[in-house]
């Protein structure tokens, strides 16, 4: 049994079994680590009052003594009563009179020469280990702290994961009662009953949301979530046409409501920048829908799509030893990483129900599952708020900050359910016009790290095209998730070009609009 102190921001929602721990030690005070923090090696400083203490047994403390100490004398000195002594540890659990300040008592004890330590009798949470028999074959949930997260929530049927993928086997017992009415966007529609050669969608769905703690199979990350199957890839070949993907993203976006948030998982990718998919993702953003995509399996520092579209959470793959999987595509666009090698999950019932697959396809649904957990507690969060929550609570790998190999680090489900962090992203809309103030559609717009007068191009952060009408506003290029900072924008067509004349700030959660006038 693993134990830890859980310092979650949504403590009232904790439904877990509580275990009062009779044996405590000063070195075991493990809070949920923040980004870049290792496991604390000593006790935390005492708060100023009892209100600041983590969960503890009221009116109880634990005192550790130096050998030869007069234990009884010390306990009497604090008006205490010995409740339980562990001679091997030379420690005593002590009851205190009501209305006695634990913090004050501990401070007093810390000043006594014979006292080695004094601490609250902390209450540890019992991590929920699901009853699923194959849970031991799943290294992913353990690696990202899912069991601790499940003590807080296992998700909600009203927090939906759209599996934009091949078919999901709706007859699988792991999805019983949780498959929503999706759609088939393949053109022409691949008929129902096509022999299953590609089992991808069922595997992805299981990682994200297979029913857990049901005594069957495996546990998905957000096991109570609803699954919205959106078929965009052929089950016969695994091929996903761009128009089908765009159709699927839009369907998922339209499914979302203010009380039923949707996270779209796209475990697919290709080399081509498709404006249609970009428009679909912008549309999803407007509908408050987060899109999570696998970074790709080429093992290089390249940008594949849809992972490379602004606002999409690009997820890379890690190994059980927290290395980047050799096949995992990386780069500055990477958001976070998640387990993606030898991942055990659901397969169609006809081909054995369970099995291993590897790829960034397997990493993305770990993150989509965590996003669904967050939204089950806070359904009103925006996509950038959810993304910030996941990125800023991830466990850094490779370096102590952003690392192109690992993004912001390994997703941490337990930490992501802690106190909400401020969003790190704002929105930018660049309107492009010509010298006659006519709006220009189809212009390429680059957003780059600002210089005072926007002279000289520095690091391009994101690119987009202005809308030619239809989807989006004519002449406007939307950037839906721009990290807080100072930027310049440059717009160009085949014959004209222009830039903002001064750098502009991007503030978290706030839309910023600028006009760029282009000329020959």
């Amino acid at each position, binding site marked *: 049994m693993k134990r830890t102190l859980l310092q979650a921001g949504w403590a009232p929602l904790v439904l877990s079994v509580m275990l009062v721990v009779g044996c405590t030690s000063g070195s075991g005070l493990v809070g949920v680590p923040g980004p870049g923090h290792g496991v604390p090696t000593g006790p935390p400083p005492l708060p100023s009052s009892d209100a600041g203490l983590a969960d503890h047994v009221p009116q109880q403390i634990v005192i550790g003594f130096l050998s030869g100490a007069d234990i009884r004398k010390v306990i009497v000195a604090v008006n205490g009563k010995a409740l339980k002594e562990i001679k091997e540890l030379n420690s005593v659990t002590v009851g205190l009179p009501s209305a006695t300040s634990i913090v004050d008592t501990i401070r007093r004890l810390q000043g006594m020469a014979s006292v080695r330590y004094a601490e609250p009798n902390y209450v540890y949470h019992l991590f929920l280990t699901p009853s699923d028999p194959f849970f031991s074959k799943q290294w992913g949930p353990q690696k990202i702290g899912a069991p601790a997260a499940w003590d807080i929530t296992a998700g909600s049927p009203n927090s939906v994961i759209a599996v934009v993928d091949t078919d999901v086997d709706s007859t699988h017992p792991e999805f019983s009662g949780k498959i929503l009415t999706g759609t088939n966007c393949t053109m022409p529609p691949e008929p129902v009953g096509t022999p299953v050669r590609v089992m991808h969608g069922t595997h992805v769905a299981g990682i994200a949301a297979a029913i857990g703690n049901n005594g069957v199979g495996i546990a998905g990350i957000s096991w109570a979530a609803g699954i919205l199957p959106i078929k965009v890839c052929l089950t016969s*070949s695994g091929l996903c*046409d761009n128009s089908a993907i765009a159709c699927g993203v839009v369907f998922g976006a339209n499914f979302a409501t203010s009380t039923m948030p949707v996270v779209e998982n796209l475990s697919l990718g*290709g080399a081509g920048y498709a404006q249609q998919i970009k428009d679909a993702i912008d549309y999803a953003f407007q509908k408050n829908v987060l899109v999570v995509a696998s970074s790709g399996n080429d093992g290089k520092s390249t940008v594949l*799509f849809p992972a490379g579209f602004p606002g999409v959470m690009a997820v890379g793959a890690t190994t059980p030893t927290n290395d980047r999987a*050799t096949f995992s595509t990386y780069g500055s666009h990477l958001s976070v990483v998640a387990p993606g090698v030898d991942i055990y999950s659901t397969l169609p019932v006809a081909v054995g129900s369970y099995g291993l697959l590897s790829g*960034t*396809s397997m990493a993305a649904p770990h993150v989509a599952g965590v996003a669904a957990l967050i939204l089950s507690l806070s359904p009103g969060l925006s996509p950038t708020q959810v993304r910030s929550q996941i990125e800023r609570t991830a466990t850094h790998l490779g370096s102590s900050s952003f690392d192109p190999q690992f993004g912001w680090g390994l997703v941490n489900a337990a930490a992501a359910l802690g106190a909400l962090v401020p969003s790190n992203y704002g929105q930018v809309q660049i309107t492009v016009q010509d010298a006659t103030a006519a709006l220009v559609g189809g212009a390429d717009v680059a957003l780059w790290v600002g210089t005072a007068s926007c002279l000289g191009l520095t690091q391009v952060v994101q690119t987009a095209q202005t809308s030619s009408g239809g989807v989006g506003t004519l002449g406007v290029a939307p950037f839906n998730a721009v990290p807080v900072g100072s930027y310049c924008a440059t717009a160009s067509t085949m014959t004209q070009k222009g830039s903002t004349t001064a750098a502009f700030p991007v503030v978290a959660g706030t839309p910023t609009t600028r006009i760029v006038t282009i000329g020959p």
Partner: protein
Amino acid sequence: MYGRLLKMRMITVAILAASLPLTPAMAGPTAPATVRGVQIELRLNKAAYTAGEPVEITLTLLNPATAVAKFQFPTGQMYDFIVSKDGQFVWQWSFGRAFTQAFTALTLLPGESKLFKEQWDQRDARGHQAPAGEYEMVAVFPAGEVEVVVPPQGETLRVRFAIVGGPR
């Protein structure tokens, strides 16, 4: 399995259409290659096409051996086709498509064959009709090196099919 993945480097095996006279009426060009004992053939249905006429592409895999042949691909993509003209890129089958990003296995039992059929509508990567002239097509088989034997470089041939009529 993970150990094998770690060792895997992507290898691209190019199978090039064999040189044939540009005679519209005759059967299309073929290009054979052998990868880990498996015979792979790229075949076009014709050697020359009128403007706008679909180019039918067939990729056939045949395992003539008595042992099972297994290939592993890093994504759902098992092949690609690239068309060029005078050394300039014209069209790529995978362009505008996406693939599932999980490793995919392809198993051929002894004597088993698999057939993949695709089509090129003669539109280039920008959607414009390709002009008349001579073209090359390359088939790509992106399997991992652990699973394949790469044919010697000298075996690949660069040859053509044609689009006749229409704009030049």
